[in-house]
């Protein structure tokens, strides 16, 4: 099998098919690695932009009273922070990782639809340019929260809401095309003998994520289209005056919104399922159960949406159904956490930066999962609803969940991308600063939330002052630390110890069989995987020849 890839390492051969020079390389590229890099850089820019909005929010909340910004602008900051982080930072980061790694992991030469890949990336700058430009329009940008509940986002919305709707349409189209590409790549371009049950879990989780995207992004497009029609064409989907119902908005939105939260976490599950075995030097425990658990989570995500709206007045049977269905999600998620812990159990563990982020992911995501269970209890949710407890919950699943998963992936695969080892000391500093900052920022939010502090409010009762100051200090620390990450990545691209093809001795997978940095074209002749055992045959990952 190793003979297959030898000719790609040959420099002279590579030269003729190397990247074009200058700007047109990036504008016109159909190479999955280039597009993956662009997605990752785009997502990092969005992360810094959305993060700086979070800094504005935390600066205002540093003390009670209004000091820095007015409530109108504060609302725009909370809204844009959420939208940019969800649609601009987390989702494109995972699409970037998918672009880079899925072809390498399944032995494919590229994505199945390379030109559509280029288009789906370049829609994103257009979409976010449009979205961010609304901040400079008369009347300001979206100020109705990232969930844009009607009628706040229809009857009472600023004029710029039309641009917001169009931006959502564009990023939705981009996500759908990206998802179709991922499905087509995984189902059609696997190397011979690479059966589904031989795929790394990152590929599995992305396959399932892509189906979720294909199923729910059109519903999001539908709901913003209804808003558009209500605002401009006189329909009354969400207007009671014409026989519509604002609560309908919440149902349709959360039918999209709940699978969306799994879209943001499942690929992280997959990446962590590669990283933990690599640094435990053991095969992943329970590969098959991981696959089925992911499928179960994806299925359950479609039947729990109303747990976001327990307080709108749904019938008791409805509350019970959604409460129990939500709690049921803890079962497959528990299977996953159990498998990660069992993988580490009696392993030869080392704690390089990817492992540190992955272990923190397991611990902190579990905390976020537990607060999710608390919120799932319908009668208790009446107390927690729209308080900082909710903010604490979803930041615990998204920051140490999705974001730490992305950091872990970045450090794990940076040697493969750049051909250099990153600076381990700085990376560990990045981890510890992020870990401490993130917990300082979000843990106190549990307490102020339980005590009744409402979310999306620029001012608060004096009794919440101390915890909010701690939160703000932690948030500033977390935010500033991300500049260190930028520095580490740039330093790694520009130089550092040369990375071998497989820099992590416990790592498994086809991506480590190509040289570092990965050549511009890989696996033009597919590797033969037919003599490699399936994970379920019990021997674990012997995917590396």
């Amino acid at each position, binding site marked *: 099998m190793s003979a297959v890839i030898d000719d790609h390492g040959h420099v002279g051969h590579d030269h003729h098919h190397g990247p074009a020079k200058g700007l047109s390389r990036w504008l016109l590229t159909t190479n999955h690695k280039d597009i993956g890099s662009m997605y990752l850089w785009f997502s990092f820019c969005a992360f810094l932009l959305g993060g700086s909005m979070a800094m504005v929010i935390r600066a205002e909340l540093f003390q009670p009273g209004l000091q820095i910004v007015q409530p109108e602008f504060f609302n725009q900051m909370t809204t844009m922070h959420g939208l940019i982080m969800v649609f601009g930072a987390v989702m494109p980061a995972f699409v970037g990782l998918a672009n880079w790694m899925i072809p390498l992991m399944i032995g494919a030469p590229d994505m199945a639809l390379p030109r559509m890949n280029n288009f789906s990336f370049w829609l994103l700058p257009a979409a976010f340019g449009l979205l961010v430009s609304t901040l400079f329009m008369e009347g300001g940008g979206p100020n109705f929260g990232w969930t844009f509940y009607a009628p706040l986002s229809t009857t009472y919305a600023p004029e710029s809401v039309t641009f917001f709707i169009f931006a959502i349409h564009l990023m939705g189209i981009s996500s759908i095309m990206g998802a*179709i590409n991922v*499905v087509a790549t995984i189902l*059609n371009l696997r190397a011979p003998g690479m059966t589904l049950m031989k795929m790394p879990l990152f590929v599995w989780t992305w396959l399932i994520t892509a189906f979720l995207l294909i199923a729910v992004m*059109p*519903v*999001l*497009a539908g*709901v913003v289209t209804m808003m558009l029609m209500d605002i401009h064409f006189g329909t009354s989907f969400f207007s009671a*005056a014409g026989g519509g*119902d604002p609560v309908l908005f919440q149902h349709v939105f959360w039918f999209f919104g709940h699978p969306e939260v799994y879209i943001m976490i499942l690929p992280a599950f997959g990446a962590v399922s590669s990283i933990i075995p690599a640094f435990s030097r053991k095969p992943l425990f329970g590969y098959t159960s991981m696959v089925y658990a992911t499928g179960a989570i994806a299925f359950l995500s479609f039947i729990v949406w109303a747990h976001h709206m327990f307080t709108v007045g749904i019938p008791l049977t409805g509350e019970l159904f959604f409460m129990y269905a939500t709690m049921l999600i803890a079962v497959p998620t528990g299977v996953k956490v159990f498998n990660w812990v069992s993988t580490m159990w009696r392993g030869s563990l080392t704690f390089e930066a990817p492992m540190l982020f992955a272990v923190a992911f397991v611990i902190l995501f579990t905390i976020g999962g537990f607060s999710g269970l608390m919120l799932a209890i319908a009668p208790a949710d009446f107390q927690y609803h729209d308080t900082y407890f909710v903010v604490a919950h979803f930041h615990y699943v998204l920051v140490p969940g999705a974001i730490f998963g992305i950091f872990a992936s970045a450090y794990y695969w940076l040697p493969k991308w750049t051909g250099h080892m990153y600076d381990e000391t700085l990376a560990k500093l990045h981890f510890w600063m992020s870990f401490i900052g993130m917990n300082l920022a979000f843990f106190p939010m549990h307490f102020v939330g339980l005590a009744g502090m409402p979310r999306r409010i620029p001012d608060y009762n004096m009794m919440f002052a101390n915890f909010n100051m701690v939160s703000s200090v932690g948030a500033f620390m977390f935010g500033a630390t991300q500049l260190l990450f930028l520095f580490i990545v740039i330093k790694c691209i520009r130089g550092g110890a040369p990375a071998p093809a497989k820099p992590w001795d416990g790592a498994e997978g086809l991506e480590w069989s190509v040289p570092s940095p990965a050549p511009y074209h890989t696996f033009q002749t597919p590797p033969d995987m037919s003599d490699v055992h399936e994970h379920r045959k019990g021997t674990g990952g012997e995917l590396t020849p």
Partner: protein
Amino acid sequence: MNEALSTRRLVRRLVFVVIGMFGFGFLLVPIYDVMCQAFGINGKTAGAYTGAQSADEARAVRVQFLATNAAGMQWQFGPQADQISVHPGATQEIRFVAYNPTDKPMTAQAIPSVSPSRAAAYFHKTECFCFTQQVLQPGERIEMPVRFIVDRDLPADVHHLTLAYTLFDITSRQPPVAVNATSAPAKESLQ
């Protein structure tokens, strides 16, 4: 190439799924309406009730009335009584009064809602001004009747319920037919 062909077929299928789910988003609208009316979700009441029931003299339920103007609505709008006591099964009538203080003819639509929402399915309106739109000339005032029956099967632990109307200005959507002010007929009731 076989691979390209199967990719094309797969993409076509996935695009159908995308279009289907876009349609499903809109399909949720009628589904939601049907579910709301079937289960009385969100305080939604059904249309005109045609049945009749005998009064349950042994039981009395307090029905409270609320009238609210939606944002921008300038009419004066309110019930003639804040609350009445009714026997389940008996037909009751209450009148709401609306007055247009502006100098323009206006159209309004009232939207009812019943609390607690699980009682909504047991609150039947045999006649309601909310079934139609109201047009008031400048300075005109009308009394609008609501006839209703509280179902005998109302759960025993519900002792009072609230019928709330929100009045919306829909003049821009349904421009009122201009009526000659001198020959405006006195309206006894709305059709």
